[in-house]
């Protein structure tokens, strides 16, 4: 979530769901929270009962809209304009929180001369390099190039101060433009702008909730950036009832970005070293130089990195071998999901482990993903049930249509049954950064095994093989410190893993106090006492920590804090452990005035206790506990000592919230509206239609409809149902869930049904350039046609939970979507494309494609966007400096 990461410092929700109850207004946009986060939604309902205004901005009237005071429909993919309109309203109506903006954000910082805004560049900022299809962000930085010590104009009058740039940038986002682009009537927009801004100020706060309705766009990160700007202008970050609640996906998806399953990030948001010609991070020192900030929390990056290496390689990480630095792989190109599937399709990938994912259904352009799997030599699937990604070789549309024949497929498939979440112990990190340890309820049946067991057993065998070899390539394996004590079932002890994540002193003789599970599998002393805080991590090899941001979860007191179950106070401290350091609302220094007293009685959270000379309050202060509000750093001071006492955003060098992002994003320091890759209209805001830095995956198998393509006059968007979970592996196989939503359907308006001449319940086929699927027509006034850019636009909405396997089968909506990747996080555009609806059933079997050709005319026009680069063009600047450092993560 670099949208949040670059704005505030950390790539996680700034608040906790419980805190939503204190809001005066909640704007839910890009999420159907009631449907997909029903348990957390209780706090929204509580807020509503407390008198808060609930606003839902969503293209379709969902169960969330039903609970809102105000439902506002917009066209998918136009959120920047909608939010930008509110930003403009805030600035022109002077509805911003003046003191907060001046003191806590970088509104006052002066940007370097030479920066050119997109308003003046036809959608492009300065620094665009067409040849690389990427920005050089040098010109985006502050005057004086020193992010730690920006020049500020606290009157906000300097023409190059962020505030003035912002004003100019958003001046065009008027209610009229909002209507033209989003389809939202001006009076509705006006109501949202008024209600939201009126609910912010010293004694009021407004919160925002979003999920994949924002992220899965070619401008996803910039949508979140717009929201961040708005929340900073309203002074809602770090305050009770404020914040931005990023609602995450799978149960521990936050955990799997903190300790990532991503190709370009290491635990604790450390970047993976690069091995390209321009960015040669072969040496640890180069790496540390590239990423260590003089001031702020990132000043200690060397300690975090070296402690991580010590946890990986134990005694084999020494000062001499650069703490094992060279054992880490380097990345030299995009290896994100879509990129490696493209390589797989091209036959460049031999083997594949698929654990807990179902790309044959959930993956974008899933027909392509299934075909890619058929190019593998072997694959291992670990899942609870035999999902589509495991049985595509004998049951899939491709088999049915004769595109693949089972005995011609060379892929060898190993299906290994996995243990479910109740069948194994360990922690989940939930959407609000809360770690909760869960015990095993029952043992897994039969041959089902947990991930821990599988990885552990695989590692032991691989390490043994590596030890028997002398190949230099095997050295990283030989170097691994695979010490974990085992349970009776041959699993690594989950708490031993947690202890390692927390971190310890590496010297086994450093004292016996505070040692937790100090012996390795063979009974030898392995490490010293646990450490209690990431401030204690060292860059001299004396500490190890598997993920610095989690430090404190299992400290020297030996208490597994993720396992605590005694909630107390407003936020339930004492239940689990919220990273960092059990802070539930982060950046909460901002909940107090610059002088350390609360902004108001209603909205107090943490404050400076002048008597005891420390920060205190309802939450753990996200600040150095004893740093006084009036603290002034010495000019050369480093780390936290280099930041002022009124600088709440401690991960940023300047300690400020970034309205303007001087570094860290691929597609600009400020948000700009670009149309979705497939759009019914030309961009009314800029001459350029699409995000310049997006990765198009220009391939023959990835056709795209140009703007306004008459073959596909309608907009298709996708959503989830409460009754199902994602690709269906965890719901379509369960009778009690599957019976609740047994069949694929498409939601459309009565007006559109009339246009098509169909009736509620009819079978229709939805087609795009990628293919077609059948669905029942769910005709409802919940779907409204919109007036966009002067004409009526029909939209259809489809859930994405069905596939070809299991007891409840149905069309998979991802067969319809195209491949593209947002430039910052490589996320697909899963929420919008162009389609047509054929009011008849779709033929199955080999005749499908003939029928499709007849109905769709795929060859009648060019299937390429005019702005799409030719095949083989650079795919955007993913690997440029600064990337990954600011809490980059993938909202899955």
């Amino acid at each position, binding site marked *: 979530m670099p949208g949040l990461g670059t704005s505030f410092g950390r790539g996680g929700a700034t608040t906790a769901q419980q805190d939503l109850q204190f809001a005066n207004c909640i704007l839910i946009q890009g999420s159907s929270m009631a449907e997909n986060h029903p348990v957390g939604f209780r706090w929204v309902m509580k807020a509503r009962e407390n008198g808060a205004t609930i606003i839902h901005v969503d293209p379709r009237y969902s169960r969330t809209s039903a609970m809102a005071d105000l439902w506002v429909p917009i066209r998918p993919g136009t959120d920047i304009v909608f939010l930008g309109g509110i930003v403009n309203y805030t600035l022109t109506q002077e509805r911003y929180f003046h003191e907060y903006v001046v003191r806590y954000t970088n509104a006052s910082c002066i940007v370097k001369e030479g920066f050119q805004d997109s308003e003046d560049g036809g959608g492009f900022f300065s620094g665009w390099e067409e040849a690389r299809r990427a920005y050089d962000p040098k010109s985006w930085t502050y005057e004086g190039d020193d992010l730690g010590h920006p020049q500020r104009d606290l009157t906000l009058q300097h023409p190059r101060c962020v505030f003035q740039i912002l004003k100019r940038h958003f001046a065009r986002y008027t209610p009229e433009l909002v209507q033209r682009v989003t389809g939202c009537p001006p009076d509705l927009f006006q109501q949202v702008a008024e209600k939201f801004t009126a609910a912010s100020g010293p004694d009021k706060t407004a919160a925002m909730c979003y999920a994949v309705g924002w992220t899965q766009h070619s401008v996803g990160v910039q949508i979140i950036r717009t929201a961040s700007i708005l929340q900073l202008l309203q002074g809602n970050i770090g305050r009770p009832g404020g914040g931005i609640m990023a609602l995450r996906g799978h149960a521990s998806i936050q955990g799997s970005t903190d300790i990532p399953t991503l190709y370009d990030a290491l635990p604790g948001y450390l970047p993976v070293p690069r091995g390209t010609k321009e960015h040669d991070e072969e040496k640890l020192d180069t790496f540390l130089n590239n990423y260590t900030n003089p001031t702020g929390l990132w000043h200690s990056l060397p300690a975090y990195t070296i402690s991580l290496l010590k946890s990986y390689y134990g005694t084999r990480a020494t000062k001499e071998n650069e703490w094992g630095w060279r054992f880490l792989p380097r990345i030299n190109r995009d290896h994100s999901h879509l990129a490696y599937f493209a390589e797989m399709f091209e036959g460049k990938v031999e083997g594949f482990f698929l654990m807990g994912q179902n790309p044959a259904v959930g993956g974008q352009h899933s027909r392509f993903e299934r075909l890619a799997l058929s190019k593998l030599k072997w694959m291992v699937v670990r899942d609870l049930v035999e999902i589509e990604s495991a049985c595509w070789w004998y049951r899939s549309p491709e088999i049915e249509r004769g595109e693949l024949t089972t005995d011609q497929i060379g892929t060898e498939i190993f299906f290994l049954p996995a243990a479910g979440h109740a069948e194994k112990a360990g922690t989940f990190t939930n959407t609000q950064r809360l770690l909760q340890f869960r015990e095993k309820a029952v043992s897994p049946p039969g041959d089902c095994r947990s991930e821990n067991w599988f990885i552990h057993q695989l590692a032991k065998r691989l390490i043994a093989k590596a030890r028997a070899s002398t190949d230099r390539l095997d050295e990283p394996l030989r170097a691994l410190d695979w010490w974990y004590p085992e349970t009776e079932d041959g699993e690594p002890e989950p708490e031993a893993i947690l202890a390692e994540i927390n971190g310890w002193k590496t010297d086994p003789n450093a004292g016996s106090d505070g040692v937790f599970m100090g012996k390795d599998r063979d009974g030898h002393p392995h490490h010293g006492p646990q450490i209690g805080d990431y401030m204690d991590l060292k860059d001299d090899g004396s500490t190890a920590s598997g993920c610095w941001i989690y430090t404190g979860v299992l400290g020297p007191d030996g208490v597994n804090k993720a396992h605590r179950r005694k909630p107390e106070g407003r936020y339930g401290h004492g239940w689990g452990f919220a990273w960092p350091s059990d802070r539930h609302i982060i950046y909460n220094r901002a909940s107090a005035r610059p002088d350390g007293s609360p902004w108001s009685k209603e909205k107090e959270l943490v404050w400076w206790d002048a008597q005891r000379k420390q920060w205190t309050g309802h939450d753990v202060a996200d600040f150095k506990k004893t740093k006084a509000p009036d603290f002034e750093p010495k000019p050369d001071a480093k780390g936290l000592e280099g930041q002022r006492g009124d600088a709440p955003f401690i991960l940023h060098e300047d300690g400020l919230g970034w309205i303007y992002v001087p570094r860290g994003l691929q597609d600009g320091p400020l948000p700009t509206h670009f149309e979705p890759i497939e759009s019914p209209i030309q961009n009314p805001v800029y001459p350029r239609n699409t995000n310049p830095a997006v990765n198009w995956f220009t391939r023959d198998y990835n056709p795209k409809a140009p703007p306004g393509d008459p073959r596909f006059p309608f907009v298709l968007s996708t959503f989830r149902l409460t009754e199902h979970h994602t690709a269906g592996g965890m719901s379509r196989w369960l009778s009690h869930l599957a019976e609740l939503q047994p069949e694929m359907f498409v939601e459309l308006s009565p007006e559109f*049904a009339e246009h098509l001449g169909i*009736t*509620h319940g009819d079978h229709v086929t939805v087609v795009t350039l990628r293919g077609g699927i059948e669905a029942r027509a*769910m*005709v*409802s*006034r919940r779907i409204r046609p919109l007036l966009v850019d002067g004409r009526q636009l029909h939209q259809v909405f489809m859930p994405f939970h069905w596939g070809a396997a299991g007891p409840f089968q149905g069309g998979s909506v991802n067969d319809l979507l195209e491949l593209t990747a947002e430039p910052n996080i490589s996320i697909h555009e899963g929420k919008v494309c162009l389609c047509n609806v054929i009011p008849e059933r779709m033929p199955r079997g080999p005749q499908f494609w003939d029928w499709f050709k007849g109905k769709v005319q795929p060859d009648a026009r060019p299937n390429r966007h005019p702005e799409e680069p030719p095949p083989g063009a650079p795919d955007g600047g993913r690997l440029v400096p600064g990337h990954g450092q600011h809490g980059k993560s993938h909202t899955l």
Partner: protein
Amino acid sequence: MIATPQNHPDNFEERLHQLREEALAKGVVTGAGVHAAAGPMPEPTRTPETLNTVGYYGLPIIKPPVWKWMIGGYFFVGGLSGMASLLAAAALLKRDWAMSRAAMWCAAAGAVVSPALLIWDLGRPQRFINMLRVFKPQSPMSLGSWVLTAFGAAAIPGAVLTELQFRMLERGTPNAAIHGLAIAAIVGSASTGVLLATYTGALLGVTAVPAWHLHRKVLPFHFGIAGLGSAAALLELLGFRSPALRLIGYGAAALETAVLVTLETRKHAEADEALHKGKSGLTLRSGEALEGPLSLVFRAFGASPQAAGCFLAGALLTRFGWLSAGRESAKNPRAVLASQRPALPAAPSRRQRSIAKPQHQPAESM
């Protein structure tokens, strides 16, 4: 199938009229069209059916009976055999042991077949005996179970005893004990038999099913008379002829005709339309026609066996008719609503929709 608007059709008409006027006057129409209520959508082609359905997607408000054909059969058999024992008792007044014997065998056969049919229909047949776990007079089903049991306890030995008595009389070796026992058993079965033949009416009448409970007074009478007529008819078909039987035949047919007339004249509009409409109405009406007018006609022409056959067929058919009418009426939400509100009020137009009065006064303070 799908949309079940709540709106009264008039409401649509009113708005449609406005739209037409507006179109004529201005050439363009602004504002909303018409919309179906409670349905997920208005069907582009609305039909009177979709407009007429009420409630929640036109789904049943109450559960239709789960009973299968066995229960209809049981009503028939139970009614016939119960009343047969009454005839057996009455025949004794004439010392007609032959008729008594035949009637008692009918009763006994009924006493065996009835529980068999009942058990057959149970969800858990092996637990039939639980029927006698408690005695609950407020439950016609419980009452009926005990009646049936008592009836069986009297009728089956009663038939044997009557047979014995009959044979002894034939052989001229009467036995006072047997005689006394037989009479006791016959009177016992007769007194339970009349209840067996009538309680089934109460069984249907004391339910939530509108077509049934609206006729709770008629049903026991209707079923009782049908049982009586059937018993007499069966005896006639078995070759017994007596003025009493004939008069009973006449009387039963006449009374069933009266029932038919009552049902046809005292209609409860939608609430019991299942008695008059559709398959269930047809079954019921033809059954009643057979029992009532038709067998009267046959009798008038002196065709007793035909009249008897007609009556029996009618009695069986009406029982199925009632069951299926019950099923239909339970399935139709309009029937349930109509039974609870004298007449469905026309839906107020959307703009002047009156607010339902709260059933509880809101608390004074909060």
